[in-house]
């Protein structure tokens, strides 16, 4: 049987489908007046611990909700429940390769369980991974990345996609600096090489150092602070 092969021009972004859902999420956040942070890091950099400090400090100042995507279990969500805030756990597909990041659709499914209009700030704890989450927009306003001093100075150069995509970088576990040979100035130079514009704060989710700066940054982003209202 004769078969002819024809070339068809497509020119379609591989992540278009994800980006369209991210845009729909974003519209839902905007309608609810919710500011959304996508919190990313390698596993164990301190996302959940820092969240605990943040919730303590911002209690009564901001209505915060959390979407947890970090684990297959509900351990992280359980750690946050004591704060009496809305927390939803999104289990990333446990099938192979599925658990390395949150995508816009997973976040979309989690949103049904959150009272968005009663949330000023939604923090999405992404899956611990320095590559995959950077590719997938979920509808966030800002991307915050945690890099801990136990991970080494070379991380920005090894994972430039993630470091470049961040709007703020938190350098965590600085309480351990005296015990490590981590070269902080070199880390900051490497960070400058891939992302010269993002602000960075040195923090410790153990001692609370720098958490105040981070919370002030969050408060400055409170709903509508950076947005134009429909009447503008």
């Amino acid at each position, binding site marked *: *049987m*004769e*078969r*002819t*092969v*024809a*070339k*068809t*021009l*497509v*020119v*379609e*972004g*591989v*992540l278009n*489908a*994800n980006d369209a859902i991210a845009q729909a999420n974003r519209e839902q956040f905007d309608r609810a007046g919710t500011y959304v942070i996508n919190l990313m890091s390698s596993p164990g950099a301190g996302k959940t611990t820092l969240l605990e400090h943040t919730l303590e400090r911002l209690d009564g100042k901001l209505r915060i909700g959390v979407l947890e995507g970090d684990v297959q279990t509900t351990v992280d969500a359980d750690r946050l429940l004591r704060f009496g805030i809305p927390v939803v756990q999104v289990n990333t597909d446990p099938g*192979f*390769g599925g658990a*390395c*990041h949150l*995508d816009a659709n997973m976040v979309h499914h989690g949103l049904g369980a959150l009272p968005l209009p009663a949330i000023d700030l939604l923090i999405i704890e992404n899956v611990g991974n320095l*590559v*995959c989450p*950077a*590719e*997938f927009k979920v509808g966030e306003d800002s991307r915050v990345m945690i890099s801990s001093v136990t991970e080494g100075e070379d991380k920005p*150069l090894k*994972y*430039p*996609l993630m470091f*470049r995509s961040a709007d703020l970088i938190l350098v965590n576990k600085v309480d351990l600096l005296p015990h490590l040979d981590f070269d902080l100035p070199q880390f900051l130079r490497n960070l*400058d*090489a*891939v992302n*010269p*514009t993002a602000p960075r704060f040195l923090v410790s989710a153990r001692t609370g150092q720098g958490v105040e700066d981070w919370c002030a940054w969050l408060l400055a982003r409170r709903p509508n602070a950076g947005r134009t209202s429909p009447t503008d």
Partner: protein
Amino acid sequence: MHELSIATSIVEIACRHAAGRRVTRVQLKVGYLRQVVPSALTFSFELVADGTSAQGASLDIEAVPASGICLQCGAQSALDAFPLQCSACGGFLLRIVAGEELIVESLELEEQEIGTHSG
């Protein structure tokens, strides 16, 4: 392993455009600034394409070098290492104009309908 998610999207795009025809080749543009490992992507693509109309299709990956326009002096520079820096004035603030692509450019499709295997 985001190559797997990326491969899934590529197969989905290819099968949608193929509308039942067999896909024999997928041409992809991947910018240097994407952290896509070609061998991992090819491997994932073969895995995901299995059982769809893109089964057995070859995946051509065209790597696109990065370049940017300086916000300070307007010069365009090839960017082949970090820091991304203007080669004319040394400025670090650049508008990236190439290197961030992740695009299905074109497909080669067999015109004979195969009907049953759309994915």
